[in-house]
């Protein structure tokens, strides 16, 4: 009975997605109930599976697709970290999306693919081997493509086309790497610490090439430079999609895949032995700096946030690439922290654009007085991104820096300092404009209402902002993401 639970996690959203398509465009109430109901059922499932994992009865679902090649879905501590994040943020984003898309066209299509997208993310989180991961990774591409193209404008279609080009090419490389790895080492499940050590030293060259192939496959979604340029173009998607794309779904799926690759396929020791840790760390460090510099040059709010994601997601990669208890913790916990902060920022950007038509950073002037709650959330998340103590971003950066020093990777410190300064340079002017500058005579969208902040949009935003503060403030609490990650990481580095 228990073995069906991981499958149920995936199927809940998949069935919800199909049902939403069948309901059609007009039945709005049924669709809303279905969306929220599925999200709540999923949260309950996550809670139940967490308890099972805590008492060491992790459920596992297995189905042979080809002889010797299984589709495996299972729960472990790492997958629960990701599923909890997705399940919570999915619920919040659904509330936001319902309010955001009120009275717009093609909502059935939007929410249908939205649900399938979450189903794929669940599959990615629960995947028990690289083959299963690949299947859901591809499904995610298929499900997010219509979301990026949703508005149907020329820019949206071009953005979606570029997204497909990058991701499908990436997954072709991924597939070759996967076939090669399975040919060399046989099909195997994710194992803590990796299971490739017994492969002889003669094959180390091949293992390196395979590693590079797989990193390319996942790096496309994780927006590692130079495979990142689809991400800013995908900004044309509606705000809830951008929020989900950057916080939990696509970009995070790539980063999560890199975590699995380093920790559970190769194992940190082998990655270090092959010299691949350095390579990955340098790529991540370069991406961090490059993304920040590019973010500084953008004048469109969403584009600036997009390049900021390019940079911030690579903290995760940097942490696991540097290795060691502290740095790995810093990287993994950023999976959660970045998700919370970035989703808040995108929610805010969506509200600015939808209510006042504010898309450009110059137009932010005086916004703090007009929309205090949204501006406050933006400020909190922005300061968190910069890494101001005691915010969540600081917790991640502290562990990254201290961990790097602990393993002797001193060069990481200047990268972190430079990145922090750049983060400050591209977030602080925005915050200053919102609170210190005078209100303009007229907003881009003329508004007559006195109260601009409606519940459906602002409550989710304030909620995610609050959570992002709490996870930083109470990082030492036994139930915080940090403690959870520490528990996971101690398994890898006993």
């Amino acid at each position, binding site marked *: 009975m228990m073995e069906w639970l991981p499958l149920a996690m995936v199927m809940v959203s998949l069935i919800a997605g199909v049902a939403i*398509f069948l309901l059609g465009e007009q039945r709005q109430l049924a669709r809303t109930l279905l969306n929220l109901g599925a999200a709540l059922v999923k949260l309950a499932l996550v809670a139940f599976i967490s308890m099972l994992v805590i008492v060491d009865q992790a459920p596992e679902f297995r*189905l*042979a*697709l*080809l*002889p010797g*090649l299984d589709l495996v879905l299972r729960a472990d501590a790492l997958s629960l970290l990701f599923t909890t994040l997705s399940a919570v943020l999915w619920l919040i984003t659904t509330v936001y999306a319902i309010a955001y898309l009120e009275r717009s066209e093609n909502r059935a*299509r939007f929410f249908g693919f939205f649900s399938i997208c979450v189903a794929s993310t669940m599959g990615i989180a629960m995947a028990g081997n690289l083959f299963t991961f*690949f*299947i859901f990774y*591809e*499904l995610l591409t*298929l499900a997010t*493509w*219509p979301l990026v*193209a*949703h508005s*149907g*404008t*020329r820019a*949206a*279609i071009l953005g*979606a*086309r570029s997204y*497909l080009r990058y991701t*499908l*090419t990436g997954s*072709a*490389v991924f*597939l*070759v790497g996967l*076939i*090669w790895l*399975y*040919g060399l080492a046989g099909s195997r499940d994710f194992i803590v610490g990796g299971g490739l050590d017994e492969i002889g030293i003669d094959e180390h060259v091949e293992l390196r090439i395979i590693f590079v192939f797989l990193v390319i496959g996942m790096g496309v979604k994780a927006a590692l430079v130079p495979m990142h340029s689809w991400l800013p173009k995908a900004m044309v998607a509606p705000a809830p999609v951008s929020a989900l794309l950057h916080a939990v779904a696509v970009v995070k799926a790539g980063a999560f895949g890199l975590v699995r690759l380093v920790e559970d396929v190769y194992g940190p020791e082998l990655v270090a032995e092959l010299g691949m840790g350095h390579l990955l760390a340098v790529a991540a460090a370069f991406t961090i700096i490059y993304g920040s510099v590019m973010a500084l040059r953008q004048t469109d709010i969403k584009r600036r946030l997009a390049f900021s994601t390019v940079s911030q997601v690579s903290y995760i990669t940097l942490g696991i690439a540097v290795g060691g208890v502290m740095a790995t913790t810093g990287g993994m916990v950023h999976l959660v922290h970045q998700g919370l902060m970035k989703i808040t920022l995108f929610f805010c950007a969506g509200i600015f654009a939808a209510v006042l038509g504010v898309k450009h950073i110059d137009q932010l002037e005086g916004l703090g007085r007009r929309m205090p709650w949204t501006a406050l959330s933006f400020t909190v998340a922005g300061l968190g991104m910069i890494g101001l103590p005691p915010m969540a971003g600081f917790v991640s950066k502290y562990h990254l820096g201290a961990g790097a020093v602990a393993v002797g990777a001193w060069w990481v410190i200047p990268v972190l300092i430079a990145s922090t300064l750049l983060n400050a340079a591209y977030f602080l002017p925005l915050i200053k404009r919102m609170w210190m500058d005078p209100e303009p005579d007229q907003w881009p969208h003329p508004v007559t209402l006195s109260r601009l902040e409606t519940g459906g949009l602002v409550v989710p935003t304030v909620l995610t902002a609050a959570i992002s503060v709490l996870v930083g403030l109470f990082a030492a609490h036994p139930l915080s993401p940090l403690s959870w990650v520490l528990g996971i990481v101690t398994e890898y580095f006993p």
Partner: protein
Amino acid sequence: MTMIAESLAGLVFIPLGMPLLVLLLPGRARGYLCFAAVLALPLCLLPLTQEVWSGNEITLALAEFHPPLGIVWYLDGLALIMLWLTAIVAVPVSLHALTSFPPNEESGRGFWPLWMMLLAGINALFLSADLFNLYVTLEMITLAGVAMIGIGGKALALKAAMRYLLLGLLASVLYLLAVGLIYGQTGALDIYLVGERLETGHLASTALVLMMTGLLVKSAIFPMHVWLPAAHGNAPGPVSAILSGLVVKVSLYMLIRIWFWIAGDWELPAAATALGLLGAGAILYGSVAALVQPRLKMVIAYSTVAQLGYVMILFPLASVGAFRAASYQLLAHGLAKAAMFLAAANILKSLGTDRLIALTDLDRKMPVDLFAFTLAAVSIMGLPPSGGFLAKWLLLEAAWKQDAWGWLVLVSVGSLLSAAYLFRVIALTCFHPGRRHGPTRWQPPPSSATNAALILALLAIAAGFTSAPVLDLIDASLPPGGIWP
């Protein structure tokens, strides 16, 4: 054993008897009788499957005459898979034809007897293991196919049918010539006997070249594909689905049979590579051509040219893995392509045109047909989870095992190209800035026609989960010699 003989006979004689029987019946009943005959095919296959499953190959000497003089029917795992593909595709296609070729109208009077003859021919071909029998059944299939293309009487279709007929006849002559040469040397026609008796030499090589050339033309393998896009792209309604899903597979199956069962242990690496290169040409040329077609059915037709190319990679690889991959590709492509053509037939009939630019708001007009098309596209592109994905995986794995990096890269590039031309269509149908190009007046297709496309598309996806029985059957029917482990 009697049950087996009756089932074998049923596969061929039930559809074969229909054209005669329906002449005696009034219009409407004809269609339903033929539909019942199609439904009987899977039933006939059940006892046969059980028998082959338990490890036995079935042979049946017709009228107790044994080779070299008599005719023998022979059934192994590979043939059984092809028979199942035929039966499974035939049911939804016939369901579709009940509305697209109403039995009491002019078009239906032409379609149903021809379709039954074609089915009888296909089933008989898969049961034959005799070079001359294969020739006769292949002719039956070609002639019925040509006639079916011309049913609507459209000028474009008639022209395409004529070209198909002429090239098909040329191919038959080449094949028949080779059969004569082989019979002259060995005094046998049975594939197994020929395989034992035929000695390598000039004569045998000439015969092989003639035979393979003829079959390559019939299978429309690049650069002999010239007849296919026009024929499949202009054939009426479900006929395209039948031609692309089943008919081209038949000659491809013969190609595999003759190459591996007769010439299996000859050392022909150069020829095998050449066949593989033809496949590479098919994949690249077919995909690029599909990318620039202005009409939906032409895109699908060129996609067939490309997809058949993957099967040709079997020849240079010649391993168990490649054998599995090629068989699975035949199966997955048959299902997905038939689904696509049925969906396209619905679209064409409803809108009155299948020009891509007229499809810009298809997601509002015909969501279910579009959904079926998209599911089939997922399989054709080789994205998981689908039959096409498993075929691609098996092929990549087979190439990897032999360090055949060239073929591996080819398959990867090919699947990217297929994504390019299929996403081009899908993007156009639901995301297009000017969404008002389509005709304003249109008629939704009958729901049974839509369901037929959807069933096939769902089967193409389901093929991604049920590999074990199929692969077992393939493993049990590997060629007698000349194949890598």
